[in-house]
């Protein structure tokens, strides 16, 4: 073993300490396993997408009415996802929801509204019931992070995993580095959980400020890249998600706005949402984003969010909770001299993200089975990098399922962990450190700017074959530049690795978009050259996997679980796309 490596042996390695990663670590620790969590932030209590707070949680509670049962919600999942969904995994997630909610409450999270001493549940985003608990989740992540520490998980902070270790199609750990100290870690584990979130910093937003993103800009598809490099199957990479934000600030908050009763109006003052969906502002996020995109393209912009008609107590509540989803939202309105109670707020779409395409229960990323295991033995995934996603509830529940899946997996005879391939490890580190010795190389900021512009122009909300092929040319040309990317310091070296993950994710998105020769879920996947939704031929998953020279793209019917495509289950079900 090379002297410069810190080596760690553990039962389980979790990559990403957000909600999904922590919730995976908890049952593994409860099963008596040694768990190492590798996290880019400094503190588990406040890292990940909701490290600064969250205000809603989607769940079944089994409170009595029929709509509040797993069976009722499950019945509506095909229409909520436009038929592109893994029903086997979704069924497990939905059935586990009440149990995981109670478990999170046992950690100290208070989901009740102090005004009523009860749960305040609202309807939004096209769901067939009031499934969202609106609550003050300022400390949600703190309670979950604390459990990992209480249960004696080991946490490597400010540490970025850069590559999985694999042997014989089995994962046995990862290589990582601390971007403050420069220490390099070779971590051996019997199981690895990828929980590094979605892909952001992927396309332009209204402000042009690269890190002004709806969700955490430090979630950059690192799990997608590492899983892809290890040979795992990814799915739904063609679907993009966008949201509606106050123009200039890509922040969370749409759920509170629409569930409390805000209207959207165009430049004629017309409340237009009902033209697009009979649920109006309560339609799915993808639908309301698509409606705003369409209105802008029709020349009906600017579009505004209008709260002026709402009763005083609702406005008071909105104002009092404005900072829960994003702490700085009140400061933004104040510095903008904007009074949302008295005047309409101009809105924009946010930048695009690869996470769940604006619908619940359809995730974009690593395909998993009902135990959260990917197509690679010993490799699990959860949260916004996995194939079933649904906000923090999805991350909590699938994270917990993956943690229990890991525990079950490790109850089987394990065999010895392979020795780390030090030649590979040293070569990887040497090539990474080359980025620190590239004066005059391309900066990661410029590299990302080009990726974002390409995605915005040709892989975004209006796609056709010509544009997608043009994008692929540019993205592949950028890949050739990757070895010459320049990092000023260790922090920059971390960003260089993020930039590579973003570019690869964009390329996979373009490939998958090219394969899906139809339009589905509006602007989540709009092919101008195939404008219709084609249920006869395209109620299928598009799967991408590492190929010889370029990604291997295939499809599989949504009538079967994604796990049917896994090599360890049987590859015969895959049909190749030309």
């Amino acid at each position: 073993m090379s002297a410069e490596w810190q080596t760690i042996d553990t039962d389980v390695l979790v990559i990403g300490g957000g909600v999904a990663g922590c919730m995976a670590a908890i049952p593994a620790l409860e099963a008596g396993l040694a768990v190492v969590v590798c996290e880019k932030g400094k503190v588990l209590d406040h890292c990940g997408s909701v490290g600064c707070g969250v205000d809603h949680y989607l769940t079944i509670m089994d409170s009595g009415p029929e709509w509040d049962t797993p069976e009722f919600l499950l019945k509506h999942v095909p229409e909520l996802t436009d038929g592109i969904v893994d029903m086997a995994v979704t069924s497990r997630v939905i059935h586990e929801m009440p149990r995981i909610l109670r478990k999170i409450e046992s950690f100290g999270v208070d989901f009740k509204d102090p005004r009523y001493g009860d749960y305040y549940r609202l309807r939004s985003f096209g769901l067939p019931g009031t499934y969202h608990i609106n609550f003050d989740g300022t400390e949600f992540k703190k309670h979950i992070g604390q459990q990992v520490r209480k249960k004696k998980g080991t946490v490597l902070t400010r540490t970025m995993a850069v590559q999985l270790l694999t042997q014989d199609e089995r994962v046995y750990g990862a290589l990582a580095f601390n971007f403050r100290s420069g220490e390099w870690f070779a971590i051996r584990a019997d199981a690895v959980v990828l929980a590094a979130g979605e892909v952001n910093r992927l396309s332009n937003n209204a402000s042009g400020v690269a890190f002004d993103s709806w969700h955490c800009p430090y979630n950059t598809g690192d799990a997608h890249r590492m899983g892809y490099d290890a040979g795992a199957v990814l799915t739904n990479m063609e679907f993009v998600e966008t949201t509606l934000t106050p123009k200039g600030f890509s922040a969370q908050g749409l759920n509170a706005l629409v569930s409390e009763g805000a209207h959207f109006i165009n430049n004629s003052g017309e409340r237009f949402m009902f033209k697009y969906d009979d649920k109006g502002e309560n339609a799915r996020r993808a639908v309301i984003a698509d409606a705003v995109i369409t209105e802008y393209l029709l020349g009906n912009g600017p579009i505004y969010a209008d709260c002026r008609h709402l009763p005083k107590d609702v406005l008071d509540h909105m104002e009092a909770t404005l900072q829960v989803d994003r702490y700085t939202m009140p400061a933004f309105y104040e510095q903008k001299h904007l009074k949302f109670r008295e005047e309409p707020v101009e809105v924009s779409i946010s930048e695009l993200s690869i996470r769940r395409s604006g619908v619940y229960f359809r995730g974009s990323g690593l395909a998993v089975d009902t135990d959260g295991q990917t197509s690679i033995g010993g490799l699990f995934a959860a949260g916004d990098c996995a194939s079933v996603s649904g906000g923090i509830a999805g991350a909590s529940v699938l994270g917990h399922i993956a943690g229990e899946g890991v525990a079950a997996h490790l109850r089987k005879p394990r065999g010895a962990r392979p020795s780390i391939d030090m030649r590979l490890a040293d070569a990887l580190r040497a090539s990474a450190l080359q980025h620190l010795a590239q004066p005059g190389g391309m900066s990661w900021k410029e590299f990302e700017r080009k990726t974002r512009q390409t995605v915005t122009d040709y892989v975004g909300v209006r796609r056709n074959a010509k544009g997608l092929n043009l994008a692929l040319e540019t993205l592949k040309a950028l890949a050739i530049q990757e070895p010459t990317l320049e990092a000023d310091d260790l922090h920059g070296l971390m960003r260089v690795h993020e930039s590579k993950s973003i570019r690869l994710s964009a390329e996979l998105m373009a490939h998958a978009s090219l394969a899906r020769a139809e339009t589905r879920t509006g602007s989540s996947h709009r092919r101008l050259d195939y404008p219709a939704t084609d249920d006869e031929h395209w109620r299928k998953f598009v799967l991408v996997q590492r190929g010889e020279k370029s990604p291997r793209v295939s499809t599989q019917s949504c009538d079967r679980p994604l796990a049917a495509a896994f090599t360890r289950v049987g590859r015969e079900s895959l049909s190749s796309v030309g």
Partner: protein
Amino acid sequence: MSAETVHNPIRIDPETCVKCNLCDWICPGDLIYKEEDNRETLPVIAYPDECWYCGLCQSICPVDAITIVFPKEMIDCKTDVVSLLGKVVE
């Protein structure tokens, strides 16, 4: 972009700051660097253009020494939203 033109969103009042390290500790983006165990030095915003505007540093500051200041591009955004909606290649 030269260093002078980079907008700094995280304003720390040097008179109020108690140099405690919490902002460095909580920043999810590794932007704020504070020399540990030295109550003489102020935190440095090392990578201001990588800020998420999440406000965690402001929320945890025990003496309210931090103000988040949005840049003009965000406060007074003039971008045509249609420019975000892609080019149609014929």
